[in-house]
């Protein structure tokens, strides 16, 4: 083979890079280190993934047979609303954010993100917002309007309770987190690339993340406004969605889906990016058609803004609008297909290594394709009218979300676990996890295609016997239980490998990109010296001239001070600002209105929160990020 792994100069990996310098809870609360924040994101998001998964399991248990009454209708509605909301906003997006955080600076050769404190702030807002929106389910007060909260059902007239308030405010809070993070990563990717890391040399994960940041920046303001309207309607009696005042229920739908469709690419593109890292590594050859994969990613993101109304074919937009949105939607198959084919071509002629990560990557290709094809079937409006709001749609989006995003993220976890924790995950358990997941996933979601086309509407808490759906639902439910087992295997593997996994070394997979040039886990400062990049695959493309110009950065486990590297101060301020923000918002629902059963704003809570937020914000902005530079 023409490429060779770089022989590490470090012998003891236990200490190499294991320098933490910082220990204890307080160091986690105050950290501004992108790697630690990435881990916080990872743990929190995995936790919420379990919560969302558990909700799904209860859903499936209820639907396992006709006319079951494991949960009430009211609670079921909360379950699927929270399942969708949790999975989308609290599990997959933050799982992606975990990778953005951990990987992007490492992949582009940076010391940290552009705004480390803002990064910490994003995480804390996410955590508090996540708790805010999740807690009510334990009191059966959770949001119950579905994950896209269609008006007028979610207006006060039809949802007088406190439930929807949690949703509206929770999503507003989470939006702050996503937007702050997006500006941060956008800047990071544009500006902190190491010398020589041109755009077209960026690792594909960074590229896809780059596209995702644009989607976030452009999509989130729209849902923010839609939510603000709903908030105003619910709390201040405005008329945006009030039917009697002439309000149009479709306004919400358009605004939501202008956000919502880009959102689904926000969910899947990071996974695509991860897969585009994994396949070359485990095939030991460069990504096939790098440039085209980049352009197709950009195109998917761009087209993603012009297709939103394909979620609304049943609302009667008229044939012209139906046609336009149908055609733009179909177009997306082309760039997506290009990706799929380039991945397959990457595998072709490779020296394949079937690690768990590789299996998940291959799994993504095979499963996402199914979801993509059913997506194309939805995109044809007349056909869509037989499919929309049935389990056929549920099948589609689980194939793309589970078969796409989750498979990619699992692959990414197996692949990057050694970089994060310095240890390998157990391959045997990993394979069990993969096969269980792969089989159970199909068992769960494939029968939904049939259930849907045989007439089963979605979001029904129970269904009648003799409808021809029993068998498919029973299989789905069995599959979901099996998925639960698979996830337990994963969690077990994850936790035990953190403690007992084999020591990984800096580049256990002979991967080509920059992050593998430094110890695992990386030292606080990432790169002792800013690396210089000469190609897309620096770890593979060692040249003769590189001997005196090393791009590999292996350093002993020294502290930054010993290395003469200036690190940002730890600070609690971002956390305080986040807390203030969340308190301010929760003031809106701090008290229960006995008249309606809904909630009432409590002004002093809001002001207290705002005061804390603004005070801490000023103090943050006026304090320096890091010690003054003395020498270079």
């Amino acid at each position, binding site marked *: 083979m023409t490429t060779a792994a770089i022989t590490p100069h470090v012998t003891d990996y236990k200490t190499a890079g294991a320098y933490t310098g910082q220990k204890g809870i307080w160091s986690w609360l105050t950290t501004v280190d992108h790697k630690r924040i990435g881990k916080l994101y990872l743990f929190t998001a995995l936790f919420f993934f379990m919560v969302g998964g558990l909700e799904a399991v209860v859903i499936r248990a209820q639907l396992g047979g006709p006319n079951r009454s494991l949960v009430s209708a009211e609670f079921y509605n909360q379950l699927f609303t929270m399942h969708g909301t949790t999975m989308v906003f609290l599990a997959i997006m933050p799982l992606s954010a975990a990778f953005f955080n951990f990987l992007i600076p490492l992949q582009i050769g940076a*010391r940290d993100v*552009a*705004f480390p404190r803002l990064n910490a702030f994003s995480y804390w807002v996410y955590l508090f917002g996540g708790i805010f929106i999740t807690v009510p389910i334990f009191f059966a007060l959770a949001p119950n309007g579905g994950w896209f909260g269609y008006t007028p059902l979610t207006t006060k007239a039809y949802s007088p309770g406190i439930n929807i308030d949690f949703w509206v405010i929770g999503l507003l809070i989470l939006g702050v987190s996503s*937007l702050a993070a*997006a*500006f*941060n990563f*956008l*800047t990071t990717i*544009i*500006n*902190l*690339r*190491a*010398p020589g*890391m041109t755009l077209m040399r960026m690792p594909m994960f960074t590229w896809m993340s780059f596209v995702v940041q644009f989607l976030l*920046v*452009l*999509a*989130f*303001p*729209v849902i*923010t*406004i*839609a939510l*603000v*309207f709903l908030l*105003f309607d619910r709390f*201040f*009696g*405005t*008329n*945006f969605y009030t039917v*009697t*005042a*002439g*309000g*149009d229920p479709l*306004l919400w739908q358009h*605004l939501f889906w*202008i956000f919502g469709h880009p959102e689904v690419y926000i969910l899947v593109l990071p996974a695509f990016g991860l897969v585009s890292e994994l396949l070359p590594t485990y095939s030991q050859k460069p990504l096939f058609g790098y440039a085209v994969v980049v352009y197709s990613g950009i195109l998917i993101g761009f087209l993603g803004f012009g297709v939103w109304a394909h979620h609304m074919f049943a609302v009667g937009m008229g044939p012209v609008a139906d046609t336009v949105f149908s055609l733009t939607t179909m177009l997306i198959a082309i760039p997506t297909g290009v990706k799929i084919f380039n991945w397959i071509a990457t595998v072709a002629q490779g020296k394949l290594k079937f690690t768990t990560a590789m299996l998940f990557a291959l799994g993504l290709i095979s499963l996402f394709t199914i979801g993509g094809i059913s997506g194309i079937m939805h995109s044809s409006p007349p056909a869509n009218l037989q499919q929309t709001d049935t389990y056929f749609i549920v099948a589609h989006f689980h194939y793309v979300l589970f078969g796409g995003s989750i498979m990619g993220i699992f692959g990414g976890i197996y692949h990057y676990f050694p970089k994060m924790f310095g240890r390998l995950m157990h391959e045997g358990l990993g394979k069990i996890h993969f096969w269980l997941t792969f089989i159970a996933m199909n068992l769960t979601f494939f029968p939904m295609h049939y259930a849907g086309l045989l007439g089963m509407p979605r979001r029904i808490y129970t269904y009648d016997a003799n409808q021809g759906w029993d068998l498919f639902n029973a299989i789905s439910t069995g599959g979901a239980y099996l998925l639960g087992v698979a996830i337990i295997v994963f969690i077990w593997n994850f936790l035990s490998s953190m403690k007992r996994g084999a020591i990984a070394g800096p580049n256990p997979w002979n991967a080509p990109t920059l992050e593998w040039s430094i110890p695992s886990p990386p030292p606080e400062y990432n790169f002792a010296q*800013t690396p210089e990049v000469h190609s897309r695959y620096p770890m593979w493309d060692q040249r003769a001239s590189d001997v005196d110009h090393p791009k590999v950065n292996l350093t002993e486990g020294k502290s930054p001070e010993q290395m003469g590297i200036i690190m940002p101060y730890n600070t609690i301020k971002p956390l305080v600002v986040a807390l203030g923000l969340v308190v301010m918002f929760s003031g809106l629902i701090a008290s229960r209105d006995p008249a309606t059963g809904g909630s009432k704003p409590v002004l002093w809570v809001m002001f207290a929160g705002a005061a804390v937020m603004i005070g801490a914000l000023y103090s943050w902005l006026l304090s320096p990020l890091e010690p003054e530079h003395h020498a270079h």
Partner: protein
Amino acid sequence: MHYTATGLDNRKIAIWAFIGSECMLFMSLISTYLIYKGKSVVGPFPHEAWTDPMTGRVFHGILDIPVTSASTFVLLMSSLFMVLALAAVQNKHVPKHTTGDRILGSSRLWLFMTALAGTTFLGFQAFEFTSFVHEGLTIRRNLFGSTFFTLTGFHGAHVTAGVLWLLTLLAIDFKRGLTAADEMVVDMCALYWHFVDVVWIAIFTLIYLIR
């Protein structure tokens, strides 16, 4: 400053990205206003008079173009003050020979003028809002009220944040003097301020002038 790949300041990239994001925010607000234009069930309306069939009360067209033109003009001029403030900070090190130079080069003066213009604009808006309420248009009254107050209110909130930012800069300027090192912060503030102005240009035409 650390090394950056483009040679640009991180913060400037971030503020531009933020402004891009704000485009979508105001897009949503303006779209909603336009979508609901003419769809209110009851008056008052922006331009036409309306008689309440129940009470016989007559509501006149609400929008007051002369007053708003004045406030628009003030906001427009604030943009001029803002560029002058920025230029003043950027040219701190250039020696001033004449009084004219010194005035033109006074960052405190121009920051103050910008903040003052912004506050004046807010004053106009407060006046506008209260007089509308007196004329029977509240945020709950009809679709026009809801969309109008929310859109212009969001814009006003942006102006308020901008004024706070300007006042903070002004305070720093008085305390220790803004230096070349602060140029980026003033630049960011200026970009934000101009963007808020630009949004008003759109609002003034789309909401006030077009009938």
